[in-house]
């Protein structure tokens, strides 16, 4: 039923607006969660209503634009102006406002006690993601990627320690601002397995356009397996090259900013790299996590993500960089 409704609205979207933007990983019109479905329903209600009103206005214009035989009736015209100029718009706007306001409280209400809680911190320009346990203590930290079990409510706790960001997964729900000094909350109910894209929806500086993230909604069992995997410390490098990569990482001082759990690298400024090789994208920018991209990232991150707050390591020898990239790619 739900799937049919979704297919119907995507079809309607294609008919009305052309194919672009209707389906896909980042479409609010192709909902994968209860909150997005509510928003999509509001959109379609308003679109249908707007079409009806538009047709009515055109019909009135056509009717009154024709030459008329009968005598003018100021009385009727007065009522027409009062009715369609005052009573009708006030009624429609009141109904829309009531509908919109009625949608809001469930969107910001808290998930039931004991729900999965994920803390997301807006950084410049990436997302720090922490899965929390029942007491609110962090279980595991990662970056730019969120995985969720399907069919279960998830409580997001959102904050920022720099500028205002806005956390938005269009296919799952509405957006919520991340405001320095405050904690904001967003509750989502993903209803279908799939990969979705999220983005920062509040201009936050140079690389704002690269401040994206991936969301994977999975079977609860697969989710539990993934979370358990994320909690493991980094794998020990097995090959000589990856061992060399680990040593380069230690020598180059990456650990001042990055954590690789299970090693001496315990910096907190940049993303946790413990499982960076298994990330769905690199640098919040939709880059792939293969060794070639990792090499380019380390030697000149600015080229891949203008404005990035990570220094370039061009002076590093190309063998070192290659070893480093091989090591990072193996951190799965």
């Amino acid at each position, binding site marked *: 039923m739900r799937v049919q409704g979704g297919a119907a609205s995507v079809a309607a979207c294609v008919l009305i607006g052309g194919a672009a933007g209707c389906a896909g990983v980042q479409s609010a019109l192709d909902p994968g969660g209860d909150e997005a479905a509510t928003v999509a329903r509001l959109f379609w209600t308003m679109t249908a209503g707007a079409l009806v009103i538009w047709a009515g206005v055109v019909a009135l214009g056509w009717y009154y634009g024709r030459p008329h035989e009968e005598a003018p009736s100021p009385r009727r015209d007065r009522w027409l102006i009062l009715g369609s100029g*005052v009573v009708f718009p*006030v009624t429609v*706007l*009141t109904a829309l*406002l*009531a509908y919109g*306001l*009625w949608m*809001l*409280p469930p969107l*910001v*209400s808290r998930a039931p006690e004991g729900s999965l*809680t994920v803390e997301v911190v807006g950084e410049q320009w990436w997302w720090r993601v922490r899965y*929390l346990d029942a*007491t*609110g203590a962090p279980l595991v930290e990662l970056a730019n990627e969120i995985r969720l079990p399907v069919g279960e409510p998830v409580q997001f*706790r959102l*904050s920022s320690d720099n500028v205002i960001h806005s956390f938005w997964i269009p296919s799952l729900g509405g957006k919520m601002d991340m405001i320095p*000094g*405050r*904690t*904001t*909350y967003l509750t989502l109910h993903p209803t279908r397995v799939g990969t979705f894209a999220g983005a920062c929806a509040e201009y936050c500086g140079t690389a704002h356009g690269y401040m994206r993230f991936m969301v994977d909604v999975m079977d609860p069992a697969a989710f539990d397996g993934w979370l358990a995997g994320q909690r493991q410390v980094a794998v020990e490098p097995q090959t000589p090259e990856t061992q060399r990569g680990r040593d380069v990482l230690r020598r180059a001082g990456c650990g001042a900013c990055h954590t690789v759990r299970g090693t001496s690298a315990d910096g907190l400024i940049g993303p946790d790299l413990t499982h960076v090789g298994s990330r769905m994208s690199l640098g919040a920018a939709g880059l792939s996590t293969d060794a070639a991209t990792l090499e380019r990232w380390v030697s000149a991150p600015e080229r891949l993500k203008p404005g990035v707050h990570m220094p370039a390591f061009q002076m590093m020898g190309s063998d070192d960089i290659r070893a480093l990239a091989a090591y990072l790619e193996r951190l799965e």
Partner: protein
Amino acid sequence: MMTLEHLAEERQPVWIVPAPLVVWALHFLACYVTAALWCGPAVGTAPGGAALGNTALAGLPLALFTIYTLASMLALLALIRMGYRAHTLGDASPPHDADSPADRHRFIGYATLLIAGLSLVAVIYSAMAVFMVQTCQ
């Protein structure tokens, strides 16, 4: 005896025209400031994840919103009544554009009536927002 032509503007001062807008602005400001003061301390998070401060707009602020809204609606209804009386003075219909004290009187009344109607709708819309959402989030 008072004839229509004796109605000079001082019997219907012109400030009555923007008065409804002032009521609307005051209502909005009062609701805004009340919500800001009530919700403002809700910053930060206590250890364990609970929010500090107020998260729900319930109790005292709701009582205040009720008072603001009823008072504003009463004021606007009074302005609507005054406007309507001035507008329907004697026997004339809009647009009240004759160069006579009586038509000025009617015109000011008519403008007040329309603006007060608009402000009444606006006050109801602001009130709907605070009463239907009732959260600081």
